[in-house]
């Protein structure tokens, strides 16, 4: 993500299931979806992989690319980096020890909490340090938010924290620790269990912040299913011996990091936490205009309640959040001396790798690269918008009348798509179509997601 590579996207529309119902199109915060020929299409230039569309699709027609779980077995040492929210996916009857037991049973040799990275960072620097060129510092934790800023708020890129995220630091530590024990790096595979499309997309984007640290992303729902089948197949009254596995270490405050207010609670100064992508957009507009005062740190998350609201989390986000908080209360507040010493012993291998490269802008909003052409197109948009009914019914396949006007000006659609004008003023419609582009219907201009979906 730090280099100017095209984004890798993970959301695919299944044309066999899509009914063209417009739910996803209306929900998409970046207006990336159009319904063409009765099927939804995603514009890869605008999609930020927030997963909102997937959450609202009533036909389960939006799917996330799956990576093959068997890939972990290419490595002799198979490290799972799990988000703490994993425990929130289970009811209390599944203990932390049983969760760890199941992760080993499905194939992992080592398990770390992603948010343990917070404890590592704190141990190395005595506080959670941030690294950005402008104030207020914006969290880089949620990759959907970072993509949003790259596309729509490029002037805020200097505000984005360039410190690695906890999961990246935990992944780095897990690897360095094994290498320190004499294990060759190529025998170590680090896999992140992802609650969302955005994190998966980040792992799959070449040159992204996770490159080299994390070998693959595993979708949380499929890992959850594997764990559930393990639980289902265990003999009745099966008990895991308390000494069978080491419970991954983490402190209580770090355990809460991915929840709303979890990160900001550990930051210095005046902080603000905003969750859900439409709320985030509303607020970024303010930040961009510098119409906020005295804020030092902004925690921004694409999902409601934070990562417990991720699209791949099977359990209700409020129940999951409650269990995570309940569990965090049982954990130590600060890291014990033994673990601190372990981290500090590796500090020279960690500290030079804690920052990511500067993040570059991606342009998606402009009508044309050339300002002169863009101005012409915008004038056209104004005229077309005035001619459209303005009821934003979405039946044309664009989310609003204004969006259709922009699609027409961009040469991606014809005004003939307007169903209302077709009924109320068919003659006028003919006339307008002649002015603004006769039945362009350049469906192919909006690139269609063609990512094959590998079977699991």
């Amino acid at each position: 993500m730090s280099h100017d590579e095209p984004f890798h996207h993970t959301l695919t529309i299944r044309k066999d299931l899509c009914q063209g119902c417009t739910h996803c199109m209306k929900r998409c915060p970046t207006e990336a979806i159009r319904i063409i020929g009765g099927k939804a299409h995603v514009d890869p230039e605008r999609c930020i992989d927030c997963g909102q569309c997937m959450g609202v699709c009533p036909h389960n027609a939006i799917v996330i690319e799956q990576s093959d779980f068997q890939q972990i077995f290419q490595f002799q040492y198979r490290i799972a980096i799990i988000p703490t929210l994993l425990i929130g996916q289970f009811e209390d009857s599944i203990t932390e020890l049983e969760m760890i037991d199941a992760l080993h049973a499905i194939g992992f040799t080592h398990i770390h909490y992603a948010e343990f990275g917070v404890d590592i960072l704190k141990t190395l620097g005595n506080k959670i340090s941030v690294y950005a060129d402008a104030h207020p510092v914006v969290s880089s934790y949620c990759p959907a938010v970072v993509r949003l800023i790259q596309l729509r708020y490029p002037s805020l890129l200097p505000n984005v924290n360039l410190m690695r995220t906890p999961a990246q630091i935990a992944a780095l530590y897990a690897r360095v620790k094994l290498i320190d024990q004499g294990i060759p790096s190529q025998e170590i595979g680090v896999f992140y269990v992802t609650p969302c499309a955005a994190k998966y997309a980040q792992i799959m984007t070449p040159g992204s912040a996770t490159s080299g640290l994390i070998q693959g992303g595993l979708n949380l729902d499929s890992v959850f299913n594997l764990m559930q089948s393990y639980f289902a197949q265990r003999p009745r009254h099966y008990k895991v011996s308390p000494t069978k596995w080491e419970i991954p270490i983490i402190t209580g405050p770090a355990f809460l990091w991915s929840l709303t207010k979890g990160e900001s609670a550990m930051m210095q100064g005046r902080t603000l936490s905003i969750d859900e992508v439409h709320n985030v957009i509303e607020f970024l507009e303010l930040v961009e205009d510098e119409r906020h005062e005295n804020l030092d740190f902004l925690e921004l998350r694409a999902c409601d309640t934070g990562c417990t609201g991720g699209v791949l989390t099977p359990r209700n986000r409020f129940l999951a959040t409650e269990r995570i908080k309940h569990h965090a209360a049982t954990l130590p507040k600060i890291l014990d001396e033994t673990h601190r010493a372990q981290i500090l012993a590796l500090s020279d291998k960690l500290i030079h790798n804690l920052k990511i490269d500067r993040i570059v802008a991606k342009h998606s909003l402009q009508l044309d690269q050339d300002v002169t052409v863009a101005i012409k197109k915008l004038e056209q948009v104004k005229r077309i918008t005035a001619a459209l009914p303005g009821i934003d019914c979405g039946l044309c396949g664009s989310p609003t009348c204004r969006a259709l006007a922009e699609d027409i000006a961009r040469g991606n659609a014809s005004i003939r798509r307007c169903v209302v004008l077709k009924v109320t003023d068919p003659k006028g419609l003919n006339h307008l179509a002649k002015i603004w582009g006769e039945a362009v219907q350049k469906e192919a201009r909006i690139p269609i997601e063609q990512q094959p979906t590998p079977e699991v």
Partner: protein
Amino acid sequence: MHISYQVQAGDFSNAGNVSSNIKKILKQLNFHPSLIKRIIIALYEAEVNVVAHSYGGEVVCNIAPDTVIIVVTDTGPGIPDLSLAMTEGWSTATAEVREMGFGAGMGLANIRKNADELTIDTGANQPTSITMHFSVSTEVKNEP
């Protein structure tokens, strides 16, 4: 391209709407982010001044590929001593206006800082007209 908006006196809850609209437009036109930022900071201050200190007015925005010219006019009562008003921290804002978060006396100074050219036409018991020029080439020159 030419766009205009009305600004109501005393309508603090909507102060900033014109700037937000113009910002969206400028982004679609692919202007440099720092140029957009300058324009919006200056325009916002001028817009708030119409809301806070005048009887109401309008914002007229002319966008060309190389310059953006914004004229903010109102119907009075005007600024009797302009050079005093331009002083940083000088304000006639009432206590209520300050409580709403406006009236720090930095508006006109910020407009001067951000516009490439600024003309203010005003006087006691006169309308005020503020013309701000923003030149695209300023950003190009400042590129590293």
